[in-house]
């Protein structure tokens, strides 16, 4: 955004003020996320930069909070770190346990949301679809309705049908998270399909492909980037969700956000910052994947990016 040559002094001042304002807002956006990273290496149990940290003294930094993540919940955290110590970690470490739960719940709810959502998006993008607008409104509504309301309703519903007694672990929470992820899948896949050239599938049909072959050989490869980024959205939604877990998850179905919630409410320690740092790294990886997929999708669809 270059300043035109005829700009008046007042406009010049405004131009630089404007840039300064934007910089400040960008700092406001990103600072809270970046600040937790160095603080998670704090050698002291404080939430602020110590003098040693500011002077880049190696003594000011340590990995003790990451270590705490492993040892928290162990039976003998101070035992010598041999084979049996690691076995204790795998068996008892609380954070590992909840991470495992998060991954299982996230994985299955993503599969459910992506499968059902993609199928529905294919139907919704057909021009023959009746009541398109109303159906779309219903399918998107889990994203709009406050989660606390959905969670309250599910709590009543699950206690009525006694889902805990069905003996399928994680079932209730997986279905709940899939419901929350579905709008994201619908939005991303219908967006991809809106740029889809339907003459391609007609061409495939005219060349003798049956509907199944057309779908797997022509349609699927083209919409795959959209489907994958929808799936990533659904996974992140589940991975980050805490209200549903608070309301309907069983005692052995606690997730990473739930454990963080506990940690923040009871006694906040820099170990939470270590978890936060790991999650920031995960979200950077996810963001990069989605960006790559988006560009790939645009290239496939022939939409050139500027």
């Amino acid at each position, binding site marked *: 955004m270059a300043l035109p040559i005829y700009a008046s002094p007042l406009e010049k001042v405004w131009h630089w003020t404007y840039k300064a304002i*934007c910089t400040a807002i960008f700092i*406001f956006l990103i600072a809270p*996320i970046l600040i937790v990273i160095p603080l998670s290496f704090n050698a002291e149990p404080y939430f602020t930069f110590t003098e040693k940290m500011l002077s880049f003294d190696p003594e000011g930094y340590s990995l003790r909070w990451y270590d705490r993540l492993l040892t928290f919940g162990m039976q003998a955290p101070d035992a010598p770190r041999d084979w049996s110590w690691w076995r204790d970690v795998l068996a008892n470490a609380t954070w590992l346990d909840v991470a495992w739960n998060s991954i299982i719940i996230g994985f299955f709810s993503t599969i459910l949301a992506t499968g059902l959502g993609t*199928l529905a998006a294919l139907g919704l993008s*057909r021009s023959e679809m009746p009541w398109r607008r109303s159906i779309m409104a219903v399918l998107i509504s889990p994203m709009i309705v406050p989660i606390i309301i959905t969670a309250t309703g599910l709590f009543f519903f699950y206690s009525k049908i006694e889902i805990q007694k069905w003996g399928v672990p994680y079932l209730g929470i997986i279905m709940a998270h899939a419901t929350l992820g579905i709008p994201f899948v619908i939005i991303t896949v219908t967006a991809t399909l809106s740029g889809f050239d339907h003459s391609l599938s007609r061409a495939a049909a005219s060349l003798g492909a049956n509907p199944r072959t057309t779908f797997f050989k022509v349609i699927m490869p083209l919409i795959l980037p959209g489907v994958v980024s929808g799936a990533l959205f659904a996974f*992140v939604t589940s991975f980050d969700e*805490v209200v549903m877990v608070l309301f309907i998850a069983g005692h052995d179905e606690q997730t990473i956000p739930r454990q963080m919630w506990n940690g923040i409410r009871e006694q906040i320690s820099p170990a939470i910052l270590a978890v*936060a740092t790991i999650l920031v790294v995960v979200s950077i990886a996810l963001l990069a994947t989605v960006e790559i997929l988006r560009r790939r999708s645009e290239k496939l669809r022939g939409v050139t990016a500027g």
Partner: protein
Amino acid sequence: MRGGLTTADGKPLKQALAHAQARAKRKALLLVVPLLAFILITFVMPIGQLLFRSIHNDGFSANMPQISAWFDETKAGDAPDEAAYAALVADIAAAAEARTIGVVGTRVNYELSGTRSLFTSAGRNAEDLQPPYREAMLDLNEKWGDPQLWGVMRSVSSAYSANFYLAALDLARDENGEIVRAPEDRRIYGMLFMRTLWLSALITGLCLILAYPVAHLLAVLPLAKSNLLMILVLLPFWTSLLVRTTSWMVMLQEQGVINNTLVALGLIGNESRIQMMYNQAGTIIAMTHILLPFMILPLYSVMRPINPSYVRAARSLGATSWTAFRRVYLPQTLPGIGAGALLVFILSVGYYITPALVGGASGQLISNLIAYHMQDSLNWSLAAALAALLLAGVLILYWLYDRLIGIDNLKLG
């Protein structure tokens, strides 16, 4: 030529076409049906269950059948006779036996506080009571003759009632069944609804003020540069909500980064550190940060295609840069402002986690009260009624959003 055009196998073309279209329609619908069924089970039915709970509570009627029958036979205002007291004693004794007397007492207690112990203590003594039951009950506790208590028992003797909605709107029934406003010190829900609306509006306004310049900058920069800066917007968007809330707790604490920086710069004294957390300020700051990307992204997608030559034309025709912005640029961005503001407002009225963690007492929103009634006070019907009111508000806004912007235009990232 009879009957107009026909297909190769002799069917009238119109009929064949209608047939084919109906089949295509069915096919399209068939693809959506599994998801609709899933949403019906995991979303629509639970919300139906919630609405049912908000008007239905059989804590009294299911456990006190005889006295409920007596209420059915008599009309409001009838003084309780000996038969009523006999039914009451029999029910209390049976409920005490079945260990449901606490449920009964709790149900009555929602309407008239301080009555739960009346029922539990009567439950312990009901076995030993001898007729005449009226005197026996009054001996036990004077309050059993209170017309207000009998009025409340009459109103809860039916499992269905709108009383939880009345409570959620700070209303109550007096002994004659008239709807009156709740006592001054009990009117908390109206205040909380107002606070939720006010804070949401404030956060939406703050988001708009912060998002507009940034979105504009992103829209006018060359794509390579703006994609790079876009990462700064998208990274917070993808980062866990709890991580963002945690980092705000770290920054806003009394011993946190912001206060320490201000002290180190000498702007404030070490004793006068600013309290920025566990109050409304905490809720406002953290929620503005969390919802900001939801405002920037719709604004950006509207601003990007705006042709810069309009503003240039306005300038060349003699408009000052302010006039050109106000009369030419701003009106073109109104759809983005509408979309972003509605989305942020809808999301913030239902926010729960951030206010619960950084809001303290003064930064709590209506969702936090729903959670409180679900988890701590265990008045589930009241929680359901509050949730239903919130749901109604959100659905109106959602309908508005669909009308004005259209949900098809909802974009992510």
